[in-house]
């Protein structure tokens, strides 16, 4: 129990440091990297909170968050690169 | 056919692991949704070596445990760089030859390089990878050759 509280505290400190990088930038890729790391840390915090509150259902939320985090990272990068989520170029339509 | 059966078994095992209920109604629903997913995967031509990697050797967990040891060692090296006062980084883009035969082998090799802290795969060309390394030690060619040798053992039966 105390171990989980301790690791949750450490994770919160890590999240605050990552948020500093998220706001400081300076490039977009710093921010995307920090957002991705933030997502990983959120997954860990959710799992640890599931143990602290003794509700294992939190793990399902953590798993879902891991999936959404990966997809959103790729989606942001794709949007920044092509300015579109759908068709990239007419000649690569069939791929 | 083997691929379809393998995917079905894997999907149903995932269903059981995530649901944890063994009531007849829920099991029936689970089988039905797995069959529907299988039908969709077949329609999308997904039943190939990438989606259902049955061609990999069963010693893959052994490779993962070896990789875990390597990750630990290089994480220690990167931590030392971060905590040292003068931060002795020497960034470099290096070319790494990939002697592997299958696409899956290339993917495992490139992902292993990225997983190891201190090296990140940046760009891929046929048979080669462009790797960004943080320090001179991380960029040593011996480590990559050893890793490629171990992936080659795993990639095909």
């Amino acid at each position, binding site marked *: 129990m105390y*171990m989980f509280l*301790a*690791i949750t505290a450490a*994770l919160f*400190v*890590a999240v605050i*440091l*990552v948020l*500093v*990088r998220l706001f400081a930038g300076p*490039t977009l*890729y*710093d921010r*995307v*990297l920090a957002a*991705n*790391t933030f997502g*990983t*840390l959120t*997954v*860990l915090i959710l*799992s640890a909170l599931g*143990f602290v509150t003794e509700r*294992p259902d939190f*793990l399902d939320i953590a*798993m879902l968050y*891991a999936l959404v985090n*990966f997809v959103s*990272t*790729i989606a942001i*990068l794709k949007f920044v*690169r092509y300015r579109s989520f759908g068709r990239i170029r007419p000649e690569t339509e069939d791929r | 056919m083997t691929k379809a059966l393998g995917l079905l078994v894997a999907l149903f095992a995932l269903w059981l*692991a995530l649901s*944890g209920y063994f009531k007849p109604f829920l099991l029936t629903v689970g089988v039905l949704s797995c069959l529907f997913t299988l039908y969709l995967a077949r329609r999308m031509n997904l039943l190939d070596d990438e989606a259902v990697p049955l061609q990999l050797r069963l010693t893959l967990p052994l490779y993962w445990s070896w990789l875990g040891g390597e*990750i*630990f060692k290089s*994480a220690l090296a*990167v*931590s030392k760089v*971060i905590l040292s006062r003068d*931060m002795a980084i020497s*960034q*470099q*883009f*290096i*070319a790494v030859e990939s002697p592997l035969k299958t696409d899956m082998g290339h993917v495992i090799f490139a*992902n292993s390089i*990225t*997983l190891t*802290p201190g*090296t*990140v*795969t*940046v*760009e891929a*060309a046929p048979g*080669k*990878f462009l790797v*960004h390394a943080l320090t*001179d030690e991380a960029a040593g060619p011996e480590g990559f050759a050893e890793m490629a040798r171990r992936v080659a053992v795993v990639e095909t039966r």
Partner: protein
Amino acid sequence: MDPALIGLACDLATGIAFLVGGTFLLIGTFGLIRLPDVWARFHAAGVIDTIGAELILIGMMFQTGLTQTTLKLALIGLFLFVTGPTATHAVANAAFVAGIRPQRLTRNEAEAVLGDDTPEGMKA
């Protein structure tokens, strides 16, 4: 074996995994702040995503025994293990294509890999 002894051993294993994982986690986030440019920061994020996250999840697995919860933790761990490097590669590749370059390069073999497709400013 005595169940109390096994419980103690599991607690000890969790403690060690949390201690080592948490230390790597904090070092990684510190590196994310301290390292000079985005290319160096990829490696700090790698420390957090791989060893920090996996060790903490393994530490949690010692506390659940052999139940469904353990299986879910293992699934989360496997998922992070597979998608972590893919996401890092995606960010690194996007930064490379967008023309973000390291502050100082000691060695550059980009031309050996990319040939004629090498972007301007990366040719040796």
